[in-house]
Each structure stands twice: as C-alpha cells, then as structure tokens.
C-alpha cells in the first residue's frame, strides 16, 4: 500500500504502524520539537512516543506508533501541538461489555493470563493482536482508565469507546523503556533499544536504554500503592487491590537491572528528560535550585509530564534526576498522580452518538406533524418541542403573538397542552396522600370536579402546581408542569415509599396516555358544541367540572379549567388519537392555534405564576399572593411547618407584583434587577428581579411580573428595572392582576 507523509509518498505493508513504515523507509527524522524546534525522529514503538506526532485526517494529534497503516493514508508531522480540523466528524461508536476476566495487554503474560482464565474473557491490546481461542480480543484498543467497581473504559482505534465491567482485571501492561541521559539523546536516529529491536534494527539508528518503567498507571488509578524498586530503578505495584492483579513485566519481574544512574557528563541543557516538552536535566536542576522539593512542583516548574504523551518516557527519569540533585532516595519523592485517560482521547469519542440531532432526545406530542405543517416556531421546554407561536407568512413573532392573544380574548383559540405531566392516583388512601402533599384542603373535592393545587417542599417553597381532578371515588388525576412531570412523580413516590408505606395508594404516570387540546375564548362553546353531545352551558358544565363523553367521535374527558382566564375547555383523548382530535377541532370552525408565548402573556395578565419562571425554589405560596390556596384546617401537610419559620414570614420577602413601564411601549428584559434609583452607585441594593415581561394585546401596553422585596406594600412606587447593559427602565409597581381581576371572562360572554 501507499501512504503520504509530509507530502512525500512511501510504500507501506499490511499490519505496519505508520512509525514502523517510516523507519523501514529510512525516515529516521522528519519531526521537530515543540519549543526548540530540534529535529526529531521516531523514538519508540508504542503509546509512549514523545516525538512522532502526526495529524491524520480529522484526528488532530496522534502518535505515529499507534496509527494503523491504510492504503492512501495521509499524515503530516506536528511539532508538539495539534491542529483542529474544521470538517465535522462522523459520530463515534460505543459498546458495553461484561466479562469475568479483563486482561489489559496482549504480550506474553497477558495472553497467558487470558488463555488460563475461565468464563467470559476479554483481552485488550494497543496494537495488533492475534486471535486467542475462547477470548474476545480487542486489538488496537487502549485501556483509558479503571473506575469504581472494575469499570474500564477503552478506546478502539479512536472510533469506538468500550465500557467494560469486569469481575476480575489482570493488568499485563508491561513496561516502558526510558531514554538514557546524555547530551544529544534526542537526535534523529536515537531510539529506545526495544524499539530498535521491534523495527528490525534499522540502519543508521542508535539504540539507547536508561532502564524500564513498569506501566503502573491503571494500577495506580484504581487506588493501588506503589513502591520504588531499586533494581530496575522505577516504581512497581505494591500491596493488593480487590479484583485487580498484576502479571508479567508490570510487576518488575523479567526486567533487566537498570544501568547505574548518573547525571550526564556534559551539557545538561542538551540532555533531554521530557522530549515532548523539550525539558532537560538543566531544567530539573533549575527547579531544584529554585527550592522545589516535590515531584509535583518540579513537574509544574519544568512542565515535565504535561505533554500529550503525559511524560511516559520522562516521569521516572525526572524523579531520578531530582532525587540525585536533592541527595535523597528516589522512593522518597513519590510519583505524580495518575489520572485517566491513559492516552489522549478525542471529545468526539467520548461524546459517541450523543451529538447533533441525537445529543438529547427531542420529545414531540401526537399533534406535532400538524404544528410543523402549519409553520409553528418551536421552543424547548425540557426535552419537548412545544409550538411557541404560529406565524403567518411574513409575520414577526410580536405580531403573531398579539394576533393569537387577540383571538383567544375575542373569538376562540386552541393550544396543544399534551406535554403537561399527568399522574394517576388510586386507592383507598388516595385522598389522604394528596392532602399530605398539596397545600389545598381537598376533602371537599367531589367526583367530577377539579381544583388548582400547589405542592411545596418541606421548606415551604413552591415545588409545582397543577390541577387535581377527582375522576372516581378513590381515583384522582393530577397534572404537573411540563418540565416537572418526572420530578413530581418521583417526589410523590419518595414520600409514599420512604415515609408512608402503609398508605394504600398507587401512582402511575399517564402523561403520554392522554393527548390534550385546550380550547379557549368566548366562542369556545360555539366551536365545541357541534362536536360533542356533552352539554357545555354554564349551568350543566360549571367552572372546574369534568365531563366524559365523545368529542369528534373520540371518547374524551373534558375539563373546564383555564390558564388564560377566558372560557376554556381542556379536551383529553387517548394519545393515539390526539392528532385526529386536533384536526377535527381545526376543521370545526375559525379557531386560531396559539403557542406557549401567547399562553404566557394571557396568564401573566392574570398573574397566574409559572413554576420555574416566577418561582425558583425560594418562593412560597404567600410570596405569590396565593394565601387562599394554603389550607388552614389541615393539621399538617408538606411545607406547613415551614410557613411558621421566622424567615418565611418576614415582611420584606420578595413578593409577586406587576410592573408597568412608564413608557407603555418599552419592554423590560426578563431577569432585569430592580433598583431604587436611576443612578447606580455600587453597592446597589437589589430589590428583586423581573420574572416575566410581555406586550399585552388586551391592555394595549407592555407589562411585567416581578418578585420585589416587600412588593405588596409598594404599589404605586416607581422603581428601575436594570438590564445587564444600559440604563434602568422606570416602572411603576402595580397589583399583580392586571386584567379581569374579578374573573368575569371565565364563563365566556354574558347571556
């Protein structure tokens, strides 16, 4: 096969690494060092390579000793620094595996350990590896790290990330040869003796050896201790680890005695300790003479060990040189901390398939195709895509939202509210559980009725809100906000399982069992009546009642709840027929689809809070002005005790108010801080912040909701809403409910 290196073409052989092919082609140089620009060449035969760094295709920085040659490969030398390739990389793969024995290292002792092991056996080896009977061999795979419970992450060819759980790990990772320390030990042609042998003793090359350092990295990552072995002049594994053992040359056995150690005879500034970092014996001497005593400090001072090779050929020599200069035994200095990954790994490999469109699940409702077909602009609510608004051709967002709001106030609109969480609560103790978790007194809730309810944490702060529907004697359906569906179910389960396991009640998520369309506006009855036999007049279908029947020929549950403040019916059907329902509603008359933005505006005019927007975990029901929702008769419920805490009843707590910009066209940014004065001289006391801000069609002006310290006592005051940049916007504090404070629109047009 042919390959290209630094623009020149060479001949390569099957199974060769790029480094081996270069050396065989007589390329003993071809590289330069990072800082001093010194000519360099291939130095080793494995992952410890400090010189031969290349860019291959999209890979910004790899060692030529680990690059598997392929026909047509193009590689360019890099002087110690990678170069990002702008072209997007395809998504990388992953694989989970479990085994009885994982052997790391495919040399003699690794293969022997794998062959002798029983059960499911996996062997990983960095380079090529012959198959082994009864063993799953992962060649060209480097173990990156050992984690809790013998969890090993390994990179196969830089393209697949293995996540392996092993009952037993056998580390047979062998040893890395150290350079000998003499001036010019970095010149092209100088290479480690073991590499010299591996490459078939290339002509013109000079083999050198300063001894061998066992690859203790994974053992150390797993928490294993090390001890200095004087004979080989390097740390070796010591002590024991549960489920991990060492074999072969990793233990020190079979390694030759280290040559007697001596500082170089000659120019220390030409004697390299860390070739990748261009750090020399002279640099170590400078560190020691500067007063540094520990290996970690010497490393930081000299940058030894901080290169992409992580000092594999450098660290032990650095310890030996420092020890010699300090006049101490190398074992006293310890080693630097070993952390994963063992070799550099690309973000793309770690990210795997969780990139681009698969970065996170995109959740959609059954009505989604209709929203897309009708030009909806979506917003992310948790993992869901919800229509934010439906612009007509050429319509900007502001105009679309105003149009949608106007339609809901003057005619009829419809919103897909399927994303709200729904929890089925059933059993003899269903009411008891709900009474303990919600602030409301729910005893009086009859079958066929529903109630807006609030849930607090034990510290009294609002957790979530929703509607509790009593659909049977012992059966309730509780809705939650979209983003909190899972959290609320988990919260309820926590109390039920860990505090009140004696309660006879069971919880089931039915969020996706039901698709729901909210039909809202004064003409809502006119739109729905032809589609259903359910009587819709106020006498037979009062506010907060539930009725069952058929809508558009589909079995449905209809609830008269309203988040917009207008007459509204929420129609729920089997999720599989959600699109059918939606299409039937759209065809039933002149109904305007509206999105989350219009919904936000409409509810804000009525000061209905949105959990997570107007609350942030530090807001109580009283702060929101929802005193009425907190039962005074229930002896206890989650959060009740905290309402009596001194901090929870402070008069200067932040309270929900409305803000009216003095300029009725000026939109205050959400998140703007509230200040007393226009001039801001630090330190500026922050009185609160703007939580929601909109243009209102009904009010014909802008308005905002805010949490303001002592807000309810400041109605009429003028304050300043200060954005991150720019001047404060003057606003007047107002009672929070700005539109239809008597709630008269809720029943639709008067007869």
């Amino acid at each position, binding site marked *: 096969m042919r390959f290209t290196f630094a623009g020149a073409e060479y001949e390569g052989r099957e199974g060769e690494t790029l480094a081996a092919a270069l050396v065989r082609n007589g390329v003993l140089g071809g590289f330069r060092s990072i800082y001093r620009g010194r000519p360099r060449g291939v130095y080793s035969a494995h992952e410890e390579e400090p010189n031969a760094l290349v860019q291959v295709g999209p890979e910004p920085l790899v060692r030529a000793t680990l690059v598997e040659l392929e026909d047509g490969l193009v590689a360019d030398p890099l002087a110690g620094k990678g170069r990002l390739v702008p072209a997007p990389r395809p998504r990388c793969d992953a694989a989970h595996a479990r085994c009885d024995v994982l052997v790391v290292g495919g040399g003699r002792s690794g293969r022997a350990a794998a062959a002798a092991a029983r059960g499911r056996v996996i062997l990983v080896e960095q380079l090529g590896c012959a198959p082994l009977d009864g063993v799953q061999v992962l060649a060209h795979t480097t173990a990156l790290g050992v984690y809790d419970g013998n969890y090993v992450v390994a990179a196969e060819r830089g393209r*697949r990330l293995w996540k392996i759980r092993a009952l037993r790990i056998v580390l047979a990772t062998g040893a890395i040869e150290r350079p000998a320390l003499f001036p010019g030990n970095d010149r092209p042609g100088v290479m480690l003796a073991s590499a010299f042998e591996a490459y078939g003793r290339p002509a013109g090359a000079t083999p050198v050896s300063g001894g061998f350092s066992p690859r203790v990295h994974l053992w150390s990552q797993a928490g294993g201790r090390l001890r200095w072995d004087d004979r080989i002049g390097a740390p070796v594994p010591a002590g024991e680890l549960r489920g991990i053992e060492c074999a072969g040359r990793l233990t020190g056995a079979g390694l030759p005695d280290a040559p007697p150690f001596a500082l170089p005879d000659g120019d220390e500034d030409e004697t390299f300790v860390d070739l990748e970092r261009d750090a020399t014996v002279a640099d170590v001497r400078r560190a020691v003479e500067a007063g540094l005593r520990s290996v970690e400090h010497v490393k930081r001072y000299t940058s030894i060990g901080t290169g992409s090779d992580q000092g594999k050929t450098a660290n032990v020599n650095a310890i030996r040189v420092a020890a010699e200069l300090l006049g101490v035994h190398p074992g006293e200095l310890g080693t630097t901390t070993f952390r994963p990954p063992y070799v550099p790994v690309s973000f793309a490999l770690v990210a795997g398939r969780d990139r681009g469109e698969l970065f996170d699940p995109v959740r959609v409702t059954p009505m989604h195709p209709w929203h897309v077909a009708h030009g909806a602009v979506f917003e992310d609510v948790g993992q869901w895509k919800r229509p934010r608004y439906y612009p007509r051709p050429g319509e900007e967002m502001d105009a679309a939202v105003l149009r949608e709001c106007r339609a809901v106030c003057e005619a009829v609109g419809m919103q897909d509210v399927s994303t709200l969480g729904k929890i*089925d609560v059933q059993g003899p103790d269903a009411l008891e559980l709900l009474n303990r978790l919600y602030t409301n007194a729910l005893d009086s809730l009859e079958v066929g009725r529903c109630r807006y309810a609030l849930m607090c944490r034990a510290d009294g702060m609002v957790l979530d809100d929703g509607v509790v529907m009593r659909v049977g004697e012992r059966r309730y359906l509780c809705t939650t906000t979209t983003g909190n569906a899972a959290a609320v179910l988990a919260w309820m389960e926590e109390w039920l399982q860990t505090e009140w396991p004696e309660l006879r009640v069971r919880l089931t998520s039915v969020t*996706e069992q039901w698709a729901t369309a909210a039909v809202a506006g004064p003409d809502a009855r006119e739109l729905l009546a032809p589609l259903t036999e359910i009587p819709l007049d106020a006498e037979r279908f009062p506010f907060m009642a539930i009725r069952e029947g058929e809508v558009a020929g589909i079995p449905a549950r209809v609830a008269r709840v309203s988040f917009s403040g207008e007459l509204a019916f929420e129609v729920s059907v089997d999720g599989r027929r959600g699109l059918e329902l939606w299409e039937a509603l759209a065809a039933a008359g002149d109904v305007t689809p509206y999105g989350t933005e219009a919904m936000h505006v409409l509810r804000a005019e009525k000061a209905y809070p949105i959990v997570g927007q107007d609350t942030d975990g530090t807001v109580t029901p009283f702060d929101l002005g929802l005193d009425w929702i907190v039962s005074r008769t229930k002896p206890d419920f989650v959060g009740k005790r905290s309402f009596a805490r001194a901090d929870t009843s402070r008069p200067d707590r932040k309270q929900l108010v409305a803000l009216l910009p003095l300029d009725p066209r000026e939109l205050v940014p959400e998140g703007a801080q509230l200040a007393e004065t226009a001039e801001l001289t630090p330190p500026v006391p922050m009185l609160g912040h703007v939580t929601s801000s909109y243009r209102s069609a009904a009010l014909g002006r802008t308005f905002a909701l805010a949490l303001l310290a002592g807000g309810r006592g400041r109605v009429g005051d003028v304050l300043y809403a200060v954005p991150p940049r720019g001047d404060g916007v003057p606003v007047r504090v107002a009672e929070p409910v700005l539109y239809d404070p008597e709630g008269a629109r809720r029943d639709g047009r008067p007869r």
Partner: protein
Amino acid sequence: MTAVLAEVDLGALVTVRGPRPAEAAGRLVLALGPDEWLVAGAGEDDFPDADAAVDVSAAYRCLELAGPGAPAVLAQGCSVEVGVGESAATLLARAGVVLHRPEEERFRILVRPSFAPYLRAWLEEALTSLRASR
C-alpha cells in the same frame, strides 16, 4: 452480522400494581418492579383485586429488534444483558425503556411515544454501524 428493526402493536396495555397477575392466553406480563407489572392484552377491568390498574395503551410504543446482531446493537447503548424470556426496565441510549427478550435473537423495546422518534433514529444509526464494523 445483521439485525432488523420494526414496530409492533401490542394492543391493549395496562399497568397493574399488586401481586404478579396470572398468565393467560393472549396475555404478556412484564415486571417493572417488585409489585408493578405491565400487561399486554388486557384492560383495567381485568384486575379487580389489584391495588391499582391503569390503562396505558397509548403510553408505550413497541419496537422490535431481531437478528443475530440484535444483542450487539443494544450493547452500543445499554449496559444490561437481558436473558432469554426475561425483561428489564433500564436505559437505552438516553431513553428509558422496558426491554423484553422473547427469543435469543429477538428483543422488544417498549418506549414512551415521545421518545420513539429519537430512539428509532439512534437504532437506525446503530444498525448502520453494526453493518459497517469489521
């Protein structure tokens, strides 16, 4: 190594709380927890003595992965190995699923409908990767 992905309609589904429901013709019982069962081919009214029974026919979709490569496809995104005839509630890629393995080379993946498009896309890519691997 190949595998094929398809969607299967399990018909009526109900979540039952209480002791394990009895097997019956046309009925499949999957364990979700110590006292929580997903039963295919039955309705709420079939379990009058259970602590709770909730229709969830619209709350799951069922994907079926079949072929000798099926275990390898799942192993790309799931660390649980399901034995033949067993089921497990776990994660596949970033979706919560219930896995059922009726036969050695056939897996059923129950997933919430809202996660189904994501999971299908993930599985299609995993299948492509399987076909391309050496």
